């Protein structure tokens, strides 16, 4: 099997997985989606009617029956386009198609900064901030975690070796949002060393350099909380991957050949463990978007998590649903890219074994 066959197989698998994952969410939220769509249609019809009335009032005569007929026709058109009058199986296909093409309908109350009420526009406006914060955070975690993990795998019985299990316990027992909450109380409001939240200072600086500096300053505290909580888990994974590879025969052979420890570690062990590590990296980045929901709330960081909270508080269901769909797609995309990278790194696939 060559790399291309592998690729084709993965594409097919992941498309089926995407459809299945979406279907699960669809099944769980079926009744809710119906009411959401009905409300969206009612709102749109109302907007349509107002638009016609505005237009007609400029032209003198207003024929209410004609307008109402027009609105009804428009409403019926919308209902059939959302598939609300169809049997369940047809509904399923139409609504799944709408979901896959990011047609989540309109939000009840929330609007994007641009004023659009489309859920996809709202999500698109907030998603970049989530990506900025958590990609940076995960990169720091991966960098620090890999170093600590390698050090602890290499120097058995030292400080590094004992450090990893301890910080791994922290990772599994500490919620990031709570640590952030504590940091805000102590470091932001207590000693005023950091801003208590937000993305930039208010009003945002005009100079792009100052803007990014202000943003970095605001990112410091969330990143600190995120890193403290997550670095242990990643270091622990790296450590166990490296240790389990160390037990393989080829490492013993390399040792017998008299190669230096660092050469064995970097050239042999790390190279072999890299596909597994890449999986962890992909999962860590994609998982951090979804897992960071609550962290954004305490830091008032206006990303998807904060948006979710606002949507919950204001009962804006379409937005909550849309965010979940987008996060599912991101996670799947990460898994898929990881699968490709893994295939690329795996020499057995290249030679067509």
């Amino acid at each position, binding site marked *: 099997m060559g790399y291309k066959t592998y690729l084709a197989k993965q594409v097919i698998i992941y498309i089926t997985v995407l459809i299945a994952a979406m279907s699960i969410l669809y099944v769980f939220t079926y009744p809710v989606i119906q009411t959401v769509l009905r409300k969206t249609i009612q709102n749109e019809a109302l907007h349509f009617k107002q638009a016609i009335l505005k237009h007609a009032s400029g032209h003198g005569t207003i024929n209410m029956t004609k307008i109402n007929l027009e609105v009804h026709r428009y409403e019926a058109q919308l209902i059939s386009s959302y598939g609300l009058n169809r049997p369940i199986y047809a509904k399923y296909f139409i609504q799944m198609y709408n979901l896959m093409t990011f047609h989540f309908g309109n939000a009840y109350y929330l609007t994007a900064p641009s004023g659009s009420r489309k859920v996809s526009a709202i999500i698109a406006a907030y998603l970049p901030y989530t990506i900025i914060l958590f990609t940076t955070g995960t990169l720091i975690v991966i960098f620090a975690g890999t170093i600590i993990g390698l050090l602890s795998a290499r120097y058995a019985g030292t400080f590094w070796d004992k450090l990893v299990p301890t910080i791994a316990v922290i990772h599994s*027992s500490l*919620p990031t949002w709570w640590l952030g909450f504590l940091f805000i*109380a102590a470091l932001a409001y207590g000693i005023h060393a950091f801003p208590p939240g937000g993305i930039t200072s208010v009003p945002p600086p005009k100079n792009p350099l100052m803007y990014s500096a202000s943003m970095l300053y605001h990112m410091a505290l969330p990143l600190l909380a995120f890193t403290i909580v997550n670095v242990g888990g990643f270091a622990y994974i790296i450590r166990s991957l490296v240790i389990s590879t160390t037990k393989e025969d080829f490492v013993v052979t390399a040792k017998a050949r008299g190669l230096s420890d660092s050469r064995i570690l970097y050239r042999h062990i790390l190279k072999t463990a890299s596909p597994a590590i890449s999986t962890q990296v992909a999962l860590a980045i994609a998982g951090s978007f979804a897992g960071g929901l609550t962290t954004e*709330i305490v830091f008032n960081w206006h990303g998807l998590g904060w948006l979710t909270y606002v949507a919950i*508080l204001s009962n804006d269901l379409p937005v909550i649903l849309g965010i979940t769909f987008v996060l599912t797609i991101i996670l799947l995309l990460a898994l898929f890219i990881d699968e490709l990278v893994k295939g690329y790194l795996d020499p057995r696939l290249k030679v067509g074994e």
Partner: protein
Amino acid sequence: MSSAETGIKLYLNTILKNKSGIIGVAMIILFIALSIYGMAAYKNVASEWNNANYWRTYPKVAMPAWMIYFNPNKIFSTKTFISQPKTLYSSSSYEVVQVDYKFKWNKGSAPSDVVFYVDTSSPIETINIVWKKPDGAQVTLSQSSPSKATDLLSYTSSLDSYISSQIGYVPPRVVASTLSKALFGYEGKGLLNGTVEKGTYEAKITLVVPPHTKVVANKLYLEGNAYGIFGTDIYGRPLDIGILLGLPNALEIGFLTSIISVIGGVIIGGISGYLGGKTDSAINWVTLVMLSLPILPFLVVMSYVMRPTLLMEALFISFLVWSFYAIIARSSAQSIRKEVYVEADKVLGIPSYRTFFTHFMPRLTPFAIAYTALGVPAGIILVETLAFLGLAPPGLITWGAILNGAEQNFAAVNGWWWWILFPGLMIILVSIPFVIIGFSIERGIFGGR
């Protein structure tokens, strides 16, 4: 079956020989004992938790009581006074009852609030309070058809006019502690600057009640700013009770999610790895689907849409996380499948389900135990996170909901650190023993170091 017993015994031994393992087991036993105590001792309190009236007489956002030792002049606990009610006048249409309190105040700051508690057999028509300061100055507070417990905020209108008569204006945001300063400060421009008149105060409470009304109980509360082990929240609810009552809920959901998802995951993953072939690929595909669902957003949607009970919530979480355990169980089952004794069983014609139960399940049991232990804190953190978002199962006391209250009432800005610190510390404290035990078994299985 003997191999299974020795297996479990072996892992129990590794836990109990390990110093941190013993501490972990001891902590878990302590937590279970505390939950049982909490459920038994505060059964009635749990149902009143969200009833603001029940907590009327408690000090609001009071810091932990042990803070008194650091600054006994400014930090103090609530003082209560009782006095005998006297009937001043009675007629066929109404009665006038007077309660007279006299007390000494020599603390450096005013109480955080003053609560007048009068329980009568029929509702009070009007209440009139004459407050006499040590230097003779008087303040009159009045209210018609009051509730049993009236705090200073119920007399805001009387007190506001008193404050503006002294300092010329009314401060923009009036809270109970400001009103209390007015009752305890020297008259004049500096009424609210925090200096307190020391000496004997007198509060004459005159009640107008329907005839033949009896005063069942009466009390004067001078609310302190310190209460209990962990302080109180903005409604006056003691956090120590809240934390104690949150413990059984946290443990229950942690155990439930972890046991359901691990048993499900290990059985499904074990069967998948054991059977191999097409069944394996099919189950593997299902696992991949489940893995691609982001857990927290999915839980947010499900909790939001259905508002599940505790058991349903546990089932939802298990449904979303079993796949993690299935993958691990599958890979270890695959390696067991290659063992000679499995081949031997096959050759001997022993039915496959028996092979599964005699050779596979015993070897998967330690996994199951390790991941059950690790799954408990994972479940607890997920539920507390949901509760922090305001999506806890309705009617449950959870630490996440307490922290949500702290977030919504700006505890960080106001410096109410105890409201943030202790509920979160409990999440960590409850998680740690499970994590330690899980890690020590996991290390036992994988060898590690």
